[in-house]
């Protein structure tokens, strides 16, 4: 239990924000490279320059929006953990819903509710996948039963 010298939670926010930015930037870079390549005039030089321009303009935008999502989600998650004192899948689902709601706040309350539902459902799916994976991985090593009855 002493693997982490400090509480993971405050530092996890920065970690998640950076990770999300990297994901968005790399994914957006690949996508925009292909798109810029295809939407350029004929000729390899034109196409390469077109894809480079597309990457330079669009990929940081996508990375930025991913980073905002990730950072906000992690912040709300850590705050809920601190408030409730318990680490649950419920924290993640509520954090996802709140993140979706906050990021759609400019578009009015109805859009906030819709975005919150989408964020919550997305995170519920991710949590379900995570739980499935951990259960699957832990049942790979069957243990039988341990009758280690401690006397009180």
């Amino acid at each position, binding site marked *: *239990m002493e693997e*982490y010298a400090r509480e993971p*939670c405050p530092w996890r926010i920065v970690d998640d924000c950076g990770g999300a930015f990297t994901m968005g930037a790399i994914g957006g870079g690949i996508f925009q490279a292909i798109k810029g390549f295809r939407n350029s005039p004929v000729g390899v030089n034109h196409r390469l320059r077109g894809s480079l321009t597309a990457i330079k303009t669009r990929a940081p935008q996508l990375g930025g929006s991913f980073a905002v999502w990730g950072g906000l989600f992690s912040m709300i998650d850590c705050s809920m953990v601190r408030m409730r*004192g318990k680490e649950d899948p*419920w924290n993640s689902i509520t954090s996802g819903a709140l993140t979706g709601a906050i990021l759609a706040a400019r578009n009015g309350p109805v859009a906030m509710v819709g975005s919150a539902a989408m964020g919550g459902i997305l995170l519920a799916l991710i949590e*379900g*996948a*995570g739980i499935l994976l951990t259960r699957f991985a832990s049942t790979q090593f069957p243990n039988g039963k341990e009758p280690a009855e401690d006397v009180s």
Partner: protein
Amino acid sequence: LPASLGRGCLGRWLLATRAWALLGTGAGSCSCLRWRHQPPLLLRAARQSIGTQAGGLKAAKPGGDSKDVSVQRALNEETLVSAAQKVKEAGRDFTYFIVVLVGIGVTGGLFYVIFKELFSSSSPNKIYGDALEKCRSHPEIIGVFGDSIKGYGEATRRGRRQHVSHIEYIKDGLKHMRLKFYIEGTESGKQGTVHVEVKENLETGRFKVRYIFVDVETYPRRTIVIEDNR
């Protein structure tokens, strides 16, 4: 008729270029072979069906608009949207249908897992929550750990500690489950391990607690028993 003948001759040349261009996609290959052996009257149908088919392919729409247009034109002339193309359309639709089904199945499975985890009373998470509540309201625990008690499970790679380690086994025909999680209080550095065992109660179908005890990581080790129904 002569107009169509004239257009047919021109159309044949146009078809040559376009059909060769479409050869790579494969859709034009059968139509390329077809138009060689046809009377020019039917060339118009072929050309229009190929044209719309090409437009449909380039727009990457799976037969939505192009199918409508080619069906309309084919109704006007001979039905020349051949069986090969119909089979291809059907095959594509079928593949998409299978993909949609697989997606719905996976999503439904994930939802089922998360609902069972969060809402069913026999899930490890629920038992962990109940045991934590009992720990929080126990005076001895409060005395050792302080007022606000945090509970968490096993640490994964990223530092999230949501997974509570548990083992399920069957003994005497009843399901038992053992859990282990950690608690930490505001008193500096005091950590404890909580061991919980529950047994399935056959009448109600829910789990009944067999024992809950806490190992406090002090020296000498202290064990606080919260509940013992063995």
